[in-house]
């Protein structure tokens, strides 16, 4: 609330962009806070490991900042950020394929002073066997995602995991609407095929729900 009692209005993305362009580099921090989570999660989902997620997220924002003069405001700032993110993810993925490096997978246990612990402890009071199945299933789903091509993975991540519309995806990736729909269909079909044994054959918990 402001001194007059009127509610404080947060600056819009465009207002922050204009401030940055005018030389106020600190205004960029507002944009970082707004989008770092989305970018970080997107990169995680695209690349499947934590080191890349941190590196590429930083690269995204530095690139967004350095090329702000190219942002004309015709598309939303979110679309612009997604476009930069998608391109850098593709670059990083190709580099990794050419020169594979050891990177900590999101499923790998963490080293702590007390020994190794699971990176993500499922919030359940299930038996150890069910926990193991959950971990295996999670790893299989991630693996199936990474087996998709960059183009298919980008669309399914943006639509099914991040909630972007077909139109927003088309704008971010610079592809026609029909191509978005087609890639989404093929991505889903490929995932369904890859996860078929887990969807049909994996033991279910009570009520017919999946262990994951």
């Amino acid at each position, binding site marked *: 609330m402001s001194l007059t009692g009127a509610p404080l209005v947060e600056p819009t993305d465009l207002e922050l962009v204009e401030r940055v362009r005018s030389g106020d580099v600190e205004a960029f921090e507002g944009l970082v806070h707004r989008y770092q989570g989305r970018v*970080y999660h997107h990169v995680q*989902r695209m690349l499947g490991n934590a080191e890349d997620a941190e590196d590429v997220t930083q690269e995204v924002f530095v690139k967004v900042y350095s090329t702000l003069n190219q942002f004309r405001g015709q598309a939303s700032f979110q679309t612009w950020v997604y476009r930069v993110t998608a391109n850098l993810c593709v670059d990083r993925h190709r580099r990794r394929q050419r020169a594979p490096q050891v990177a900590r997978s999101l499923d790998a246990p963490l080293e702590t002073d007390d020994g190794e612990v699971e*990176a993500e402890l499922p919030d359940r009071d299930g038996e150890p066997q069910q926990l193991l199945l959950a971990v295996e299933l999670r790893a299989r789903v991630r693996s199936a995602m990474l087996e998709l091509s960059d183009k298919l993975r980008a669309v*399914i991540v943006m*639509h099914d995991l991040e909630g972007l519309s077909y139109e927003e995806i088309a704008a971010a990736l610079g592809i026609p609407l029909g191509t978005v729909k087609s890639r989404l*269909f093929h991505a889903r079909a490929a995932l369904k095929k890859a996860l078929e044994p887990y969807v049909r054959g994996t033991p279910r918990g009570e009520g017919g729900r999946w262990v994951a």
Partner: protein
Amino acid sequence: MDGQRLVSDYLDGRLAPQERASFEARLVIDADLARELEAMSATLALLRALPTEAPPADMAARIMAEVRLAPAPARRGSWAFWRAGLRLRPLLVTAAAAAAVFGLVLLNLGGSDGPNVRLSSSDEAFVGECLVDYHLAASDRYKHGPATPGPTEPANNAAQED
């Protein structure tokens, strides 16, 4: 539309009301379609259940530390100037080429084998517009002398522009 595509569109809420009603009616009698819908729904549920790690607490600080060292985006004025420069570039290239040809022609005409011809101001003005015609006109004047009107005379040009 085949079953898989229908299922995909149905899950995205992109079927028109009538198509949706027709699809739901078909689900009751088409076991394969129902299985396809269940399998696709379960697949997407598995995908959405994948957890993600939160960014490190100092991510924003690290980003800003790098941003402060990065080259600043060009100010509006300088970008506008650069953009304008890009639009002027074709004209500048043409003018530069014309000046180069003009210089070459002068050198040729001032050589020991040819007369020392001074070009009229109208010919000089024409250089920036049509390089080929200028070069031919200069050759013509070399052969016939400065008194002979060439195709680059203003009167002729005016007629051609009409």
